[in-house]
């Protein structure tokens, strides 16, 4: 009894729930059938991450994380989806047919990589200062599911959103192991993301104008 693990605190519980919701949002993106829904799910996932940063700032007394939460919210919840929406211009466009696997297979594949990521990260024995280490394991799961998203959805918007959510997974991992990283670097990462989003938006628009479609299935001219 003397070596019993202390029970999780309220903060650990809240953080755990938020991280699970982040993972669920990723699964939602894996299945989203409408372009605008894909973007909203990404915005929701980003919002959850900002809330997590805010909660960690409050619970662990790290004021820099408040600034990070606000900036992250402004950029990822509002600026990024708005930029993509403006560049794409067809928010109600259906992208349901872009999956190369059926819904069931996709879900099973997502669950499989979630398990792999979770247990692989557990084996690293890395413990964060601010968030429970389960959050790191789940961030690796989110990262792997984002790869599945980019591979099994053959439309430019889902692939771009998959990449942005991969960045969210890395942000989550960063909150676990590098929450105290100097704010300047965090801000630089965020602005870098914004620049990347603009470039992605331009390329999505070019693709859509030239091919009259969001699908990437006809990107087959370059082989060998």
């Amino acid at each position: 009894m003397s070596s019993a693990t202390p029970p999780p605190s309220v903060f650990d519980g809240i953080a755990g729930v938020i991280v699970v919701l982040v993972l669920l949002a990723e699964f939602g993106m894996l299945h989203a059938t409408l372009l605008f829904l894909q973007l909203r799910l990404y915005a929701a996932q980003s919002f959850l991450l900002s809330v997590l940063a805010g909660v960690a700032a409050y619970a662990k007394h790290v004021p820099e994380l408040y600034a990070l939460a606000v900036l992250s919210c402004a950029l990822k919840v509002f600026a990024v989806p708005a930029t993509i929406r403006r560049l794409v211009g067809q928010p109600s466009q259906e992208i349901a047919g872009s999956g190369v696997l059926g819904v069931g297979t996709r879900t099973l594949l997502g669950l499989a990589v979630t398990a792999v990521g979770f247990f692989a990260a557990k084996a690293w024995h890395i413990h964060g200062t601010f968030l429970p280490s389960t959050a790191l394991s789940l961030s690796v799961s989110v990262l792997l599911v984002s790869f599945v998203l980019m591979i099994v959805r053959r439309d430019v918007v889902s692939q771009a959103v998959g990449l942005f959510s991969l960045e969210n997974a890395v942000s989550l991992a960063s909150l676990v192991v590098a929450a105290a990283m100097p704010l300047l670097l965090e801000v630089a990462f965020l602005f870098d993301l914004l620049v990347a989003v603009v470039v992605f938006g331009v390329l999505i628009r070019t693709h859509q104008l030239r091919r009259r479609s969001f699908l990437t299935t006809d990107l087959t001219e370059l082989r060998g």
Partner: protein
Amino acid sequence: MSILLVVLFVGPIAAALLCALTPLPLGRAVSVISGFGSLGTTLALATTTRRHAVHALHYLQADALSTVFLLATALLYALVSLYTIGYLRGARLDTTPNSETVARHEHRYDRRLYAGINLFAWAMLMAPLVNGFALLWIAVEITTVVSALLVAFDGTNRATEAAWKYVLIASAGLGIALLGTILFYYAGAGVLGASYDLAFDPLLAHAASLPANVVRLGFTLAVLGFGTKVGFFPVHTWLPDAHSEAPTPVSTLLSGSLLAVSFYAVLRYFQVAVATLGPAFPRAVLLAFGIASLALAAFSVVDQRDLKRFLAYSSVEHMGILAIGMGFGTRLATVGVLLHVLAHAAAKGNAFMGAGALVRTFGTKSIGTMRDTIRILPWSASLFLLALLALTAAPPFGIFRSEFYIISGGLSAGHFVGVVALVALVTVAFGGLAWTATRLAFETRNDPSDHHGFGEPSRWLYLPPILGMAALLVLGVHPPASLLDLLVKGAAELGGGV
């Protein structure tokens, strides 16, 4: 504070802004001045960094290692700034503007291309110039977003497809590299405190105290992540597409500079990993990636029909050679690797510039359609073929010397299997390059009369390769003692053994 670092930091981005905002002739001149100015500044910087590192503005630094990569980038930046003049003039000779609208469109295209090239060169110069893993990651990410737009610059279906694949795969790779970077922060923060900003020197100084499992994981993720941009197998798939579809000046920078700059990022993580884990694991990782990449590229080069894809696979081959050289780990092999970075930049730059002239003249990238090239384009084709010979590591060019160093270093360390694999695969690639060179140079066209009007499109297309060839000869025949000092110092910074 070194003013030279500030000049390198400010010059190319100022040139990019001027190109975007001023009339084309001024932008053209500014680009050439910025290109050659950057090369001169880097050469001046090398005289100091071969002895000790220099710093500026807290976030900038240059040591011998970074100077080697700055030299490679600045050399190509200078050559491309000249070459672009011919590239655009050649394009304008093909078509006569039939309206004011077309002329205005072409004018805007030219200005944007100059601005993009300067911005791309700035981002590539920033990567070796910044002091810290986080800033290095940001600089490499900027090179991706800028170059993705340049790959899509011509706006064709193929260019758009190449740009999309490139930006998606490279950005996903950089996401993994970011995770590796964050793990390095985690490793460093335990020793250096939470306010540690991921600068190189403090982490290296305390490398022995870092947690080994975290550094091992971070290093592996960084190699995989940045390796995507280096073109390591199996994450190289974007590379032939992007290099073949980009405008030729951009292809030249992508192949000769960008891959090397990404390899520089790998080397910075390698430094810390060697200091923390010892040399065995980091060298084994690079050796494995190197041999796999070289094997893929050697056989792909043999079977290529598209001239620019052929050169792109040759770049994968040479990145494999760099990784194998680092895997050998001796001082001599590491000096060879650094020399190879410079020689490959010059040779591949020349090859792409020559290929650009051939593609412009024949109106196709298909190797099967190009024949009798030396008679039709005596300067450009001859220089192109010499560049191909240089890429096969034929003497007296720089790549012969660098590969000789790498192989000698491997043998002296007892890496016989690695050396045999290297020599065998390079020989296969040699076969592919030599076969293509022979066909291009000596096979005649079926109808010799069907090339009326062929000829050198512009002397600006072969003047830069002449300069590049001179650099290749200097590197191969008699590299200056000061350059060798720089390479030896760089190898020492990388922890190259005896």
